[in-house]
């Protein structure tokens, strides 16, 4: 993957956006193929399989959601939605049908690039395991829905967290009971908003503790390990979303 340029398929009916975006992404080192509607996208997919698909939701003819279902079900291709809708419900719908991420128009092009890289990183890591990202994390009575980024406490109350906190918590949840030192944490959580995350890991950890610990001075969940780093002090289970919601 490092040798070959990443191939993207960009599907959007608006040429005024599609063309400059394709140019921009090419300049960032991606190999970009364009399609102006779902039919053309399907045709392009017959010729070659891209590494990732950028998909507009609102398109004339077959819409992005329907095409996304096809892509994720039959090809297991990573998909990022480009959406003009802002309402939370629409975002969640996009993720529930199998998209890996979304950006809301007008997005910052750099952010889009960061997200493309992040999704690809996850996709290569999770290759083979079918959409592991859908399962919820269950730990010590808490639930984290990685798609909706929704954290609920043991009583079922939603505890809003920022995206930096979400990534930090995900890192802990993927490595329960392991000691993670600051460098490793920083490395794992450096994602799309890396430039936002140059604050000390300790700061983020203390924020998380404020939200999740009964007494943040005597943390039970995220413990400080003497001499270097932190550790999630409980076991983590992955549960199917349906079961957890019902």
């Amino acid at each position, binding site marked *: 993957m490092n040798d070959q340029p990443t191939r993207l398929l960009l599907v959007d009916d608006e040429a005024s956006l599609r063309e400059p975006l394709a140019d921009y992404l090419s300049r960032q080192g991606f190999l970009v193929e364009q399609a102006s509607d779902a039919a053309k996208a399907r045709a392009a997919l017959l010729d070659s399989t891209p590494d990732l698909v950028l998909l507009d939701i609102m398109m004339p003819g077959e819409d992005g959601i329907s095409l996304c279902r096809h892509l994720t079900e039959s090809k297991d291709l990573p998909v990022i939605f480009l959406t003009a*809708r802002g309402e939370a419900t629409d975002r969640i719908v996009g993720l529930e049908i199998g998209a890996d991420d979304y950006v809301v128009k007008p997005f910052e092009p750099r952010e889009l690039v960061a997200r493309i890289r992040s999704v690809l990183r996850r996709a290569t890591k999770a290759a083979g395991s079918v959409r592991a990202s859908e399962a919820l994390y269950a730990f010590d009575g808490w639930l984290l829905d990685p798609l909706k980024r929704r954290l609920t406490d043991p009583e079922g109350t939603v*505890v809003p967290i*920022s995206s930096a906190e979400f990534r930090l918590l995900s890192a802990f949840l993927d490595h329960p009971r392991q000691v993670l030192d600051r460098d490793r944490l920083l490395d794992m959580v450096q994602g799309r908003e890396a430039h936002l995350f140059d604050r000390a890991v300790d700061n983020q950890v203390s924020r998380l503790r404020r939200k999740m610990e009964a007494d943040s001075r005597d943390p039970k969940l995220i413990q400080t390990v003497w001499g270097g780093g932190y550790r999630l002090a409980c076991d983590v289970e992955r549960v199917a979303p349906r079961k957890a919601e019902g």
Partner: protein
Amino acid sequence: MPAMHRFLPRSLLGQMLLAVALALLAAQTLSAVLIYRADHQRREAALISSLAFQLVADPRFEFRDGRRNGREGRRKVRIERALESPIHDGDLHDPEREAALRDVLIAQDVAIGELVVFSRKVTADSYVMRGRAGSLSGREGRWSLDGEVLLAGLKRAGNDEWLVARVPRPEHSTRALGGLILQTLLLYIALVGGLAFLLRRITRPLAALTERMSRFAGRADGVEPLEPSGPEDTRALIAAHNEMEARIAALLDEKDVMLGAIGHDLKTPLAALRVRIESVDDETERAKMAGTIEDITHSLDDILSLARVGHAKDPLERTDLAALVSAVVEEYEDLGEPVELGDTMRIALPLRATWMRRALRNLIDNALRYGGTAEVSLSRDNGYAAVCVTDNGPGIPEGEIAAMFEPFARGEVSRNRSTGGAGLGLTLARAIAEQHGGSLSLANRVENGRKVGLAAELRLPHGS
């Protein structure tokens, strides 16, 4: 008069019932009086004819008694013969009955010499008392000791002898009157009760319609239309309401679709613009352009949100408000903005987190724009959760506070600060507070008589 109004029923059911009950009361009283009077007249007639019968029929009994050789007939006790007028002092002369009896006797061709009708106490009547003492009659039951006796004395023309007839004087028929009143009351209660039942059936659809309309005003999605019921008029009203409801729902849906289209049509070119400015080499120029696009996007989002805030589709979820507040503050901290988190406490309440974040961001943006800094705190106050956003800016002249909530209103902005935002920020924040059943208020912070900034307080009901 106004005091009277308080006791009058307000509902349709109450007023109709009251009107009908009053009319019914009048009608029944009238008929009860008529019945009572007819009954009274019947009794009087019976009384008079009883006296007349005794007086007229008496000679024949006398004759028979004679034939039976001194055996005293039962009816003899009624008739007394006297040579003197039977009326004494202390007797109550009854001229009305006397006139009535006279008419009857004349109709029977009795030649009246003298006629008196009067009443006296049973105990004062020696003839009756004697009869009782000697058990002359099995009918002493007729003469109750505390009752009165009605006597009629007749002296026929050309005759010296008085014939005296007696009947128990009817008591003032209170028992009959009582029975009548009881009967009337029972009938009244039955009628009013039945009517109340019927009227309830008629007005119930109206109550259902009212409830439905207030629910619809609160935007209850996905409820089946109300089934028309009740009288024809009510059915027509419900049908018309259903039609209107469907139309309003269609309009709202249309509005949503239209807003979605507007959002899409404006945001796509903005996105294109945002991509294109990446090729601008001058970094400060590019940052300014990006800032402008961000401002436009922000305004657009505010406008679209304001149009949708009244009928948000996402559900309320029990959410930790403190975590939400600090998550929003942290976003600003991460961007290096001077926003600080003050005192907070854990308060969980049902929220639409996306909306609440937006309201908070708008308040913080406002504080940053006009005050330079912002401090956000959360406290519990009397059943409410209060999020307070304060700044150290110049505040607002007292008279203009209300105007700040008007769409597109803005405080006097200093010229060199960012003027982003369409001035919808506070309007939207207040609409979001109201969407959650809360409120938003602005107040100047005053210390030592000097304005030291502005405080925006967002209060949310913290039910149980």
